[in-house]
């Protein structure tokens, strides 16, 4: 092919134009650019209006971004500008409106409706105005991508998909209409055969043959007792990129379970056939090994959806980028779980697990919120492995070997936190 050179020149021009805008020096050689997976420097604010340019991008076309811990730790409640985001379909064409941290446009909100239907005598349609007129409650809860920490599974066998570190989470104040009283108040007379609640959003796959996004929950799951149809996030209308005008929030559940752009609630005898319920976002019931259990081997019998969050802790300070000094050091971080039992301890090690110190845990804002913890200890110069391990009243704790929970889609990482930090 005679024009490979022009092809590379094309790449260089594109790269140069974009990189130049960000003040980057651009070196160029065809082999170098290929080997290095050359990529023009895209920033999150260019993909989603209002997002911080400092976010990590996992997929520009789908608006998938992660928060660096340096930003995340600055805020008690994670602001919309830095909260991680993850959609499953491109925000293009008719869906371009939700690529922003602004609230959805007023006309859209005015015309928005939620269909409540299924095995009921009287199906209902509810508007945002209807919801706004109902009593509202607040839930402070950790929103966390089920894939948060996926990159750590690579120590056993790399898992395909966005290589999330620890920043696919945030501590968020939600406000809205409690789900159970809402359903009861509609007086729909559901059939006793209705055992599942399915939630669907407005967003649609890129092609017609793609599976629609839907999530199903057991109606008798006690987590639903705390669920709300949220209209506000951090005190203002939910940003479009985070699922406004209305998002189902089930405190303690992984992010994907909190259906954005809610348009349908269905009461049914069975769970949704959507691939997002039946195959994606699931965990095997027993430990599996790479090569013996593949990404399409999930069944309703051998796996479960990624419902409640596995107990987890993350070290916020010191981070490797802090370049801390040796001596007496305060180690801080957060812990959280599914909210079903209080977190009773966070143990911290500054010597790779040889010795452990009990951290002091602050009273959390809610059972589902970040539990801030801190501990002071003497740390010598050089590179040290900081570790943290949370345990709750049910005895649930973070596995020392998080790789034991390896799974082919890379969900629910909650291994004991390890962070190599160099002390001066």
């Amino acid at each position: 092919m005679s024009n490979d050179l022009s092809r590379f020149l094309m790449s260089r021009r594109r790269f140069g134009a974009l990189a130049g805008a960000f003040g980057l020096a651009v070196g160029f050689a065809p082999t170098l650019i290929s080997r290095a997976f050359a990529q023009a420097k895209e920033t999150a604010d260019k993909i989603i209006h209002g997002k911080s340019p400092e976010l990590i991008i996992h997929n520009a076309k789908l608006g998938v971004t992660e928060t660096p811990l340096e930003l995340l730790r600055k805020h008690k409640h994670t602001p919309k500008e830095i909260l991680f985001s993850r959609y499953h379909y491109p925000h293009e064409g008719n869906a371009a409106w939700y690529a922003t941290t602004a609230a959805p446009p007023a006309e859209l909100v005015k015309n928005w409706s939620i269909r409540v239907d299924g095995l009921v005598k009287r199906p209902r349609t509810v508007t945002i105005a209807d919801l706004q007129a109902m009593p509202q409650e607040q839930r402070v809860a950790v929103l966390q991508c089920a894939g948060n920490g996926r990159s750590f599974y690579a120590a056993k066998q790399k898992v395909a998909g966005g290589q999330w570190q620890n920043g696919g989470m945030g501590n968020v104040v939600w406000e809205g209409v409690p789900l159970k009283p809402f359903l009861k108040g509609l007086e729909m007379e559901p059939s006793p055969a209705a055992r599942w609640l399915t939630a669907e959003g407005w967003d649609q796959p890129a092609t017609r043959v793609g599976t629609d996004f839907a999530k199903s929950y057991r109606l008798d799951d006690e987590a639903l007792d705390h669920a709300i149809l949220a209209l506000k996030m951090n005190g203002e209308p939910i940003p479009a990129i985070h699922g406004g005008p209305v998002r189902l929030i089930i405190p303690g559940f992984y992010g994907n379970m909190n259906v954005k752009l809610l348009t349908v609630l269905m009461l049914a005898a069975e769970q949704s056939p959507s691939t997002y319920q039946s195959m994606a976002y699931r965990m095997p019931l027993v430990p599996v090994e790479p090569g013996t259990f593949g990404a399409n081997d999930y069944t309703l019998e051998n796996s479960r959806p990624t419902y409640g969050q596995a107990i987890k802790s993350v070290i916020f300070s010191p981070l490797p980028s802090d370049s801390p000094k040796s001596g007496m050091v305060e180690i801080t971080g957060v812990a959280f779980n599914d909210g079903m039992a209080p977190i009773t301890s966070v143990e911290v090690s500054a010597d790779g697990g040889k010795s452990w110190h009990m951290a002091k845990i602050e009273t959390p804002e809610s059972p589902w919120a970040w539990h801030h913890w801190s501990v002071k200890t003497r740390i010598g110069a050089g590179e040290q492995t900081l570790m943290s391990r949370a345990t709750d009243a049910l005895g649930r704790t973070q596995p020392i070997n998080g790789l034991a929970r390896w799974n082919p889609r890379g969900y629910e990482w909650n291994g004991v936190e390890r962070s190599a930090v160099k002390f001066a």
Partner: protein
Amino acid sequence: MMHQRRHRSRLFTRAGGVILAAMLPSAAAAAEIELPPGPNRDLVYGTCRTCHDLQYLKDSAGIPKNAWSDLLDSMKQYGLRIPPDRRTKILDYLGTYLGPNPPPAPTQAAVESTTAKVDGKTLFNEQCSSCHQPNGAGLPGNFPPLSGNRDLMLNRLFPAYVVINGLQGKITVKGKEYNGVMPSFAHLSDAEIAAVIEYVRKSWGNDALRPADMAPLDAAAVAKVRTTPKTPDEVHAYRASLKSSR
């Protein structure tokens, strides 16, 4: 019953979205991501970007071939439709060049020697059909049709600008509105771009739309288009200027 109801409510709210989309500036197109050169890389470019950009592939580099195979299978549920022979070629590329032990970057000559003969129809099926559909009919609302699409004949070079640079922004094709992002296909050679555009211009009755004096595109003409790169937004503006001057 369930499906019908759901569909109706979706159309209803979508209608609101169509009007309102114009009020927001469209998000910037994803920057082009380059994968390591190797045989059949073009197939990956022509297939995977329908639904997501290539960063997922780049970031997944290093997983074993069987995991790539599983991934291709799971993509079926998200809408991937490819014939078995193309699947095999794509899997060979992914398992080799994005596998655990990728070979060193091939020389320019090695990449060139693997390039198949230039055939417009094959190229169309491999590079364009996952969005525009094998019959050129597109998907209303998502991907504009190429059959009966008068943009193909705006001038001799216009389609080459679209293929090389991509196109972003609201357009109306055969009475339907589209507001998507077409990525750049600059990875194709000049001869390939000329061949695929001429294939589209001759297919599905499109030849009836062609002005009698429009000369066929050739590699040299495409090469010229390549020397004046535009952003996808600029291609959109260029289209508008051609439309208004007609």
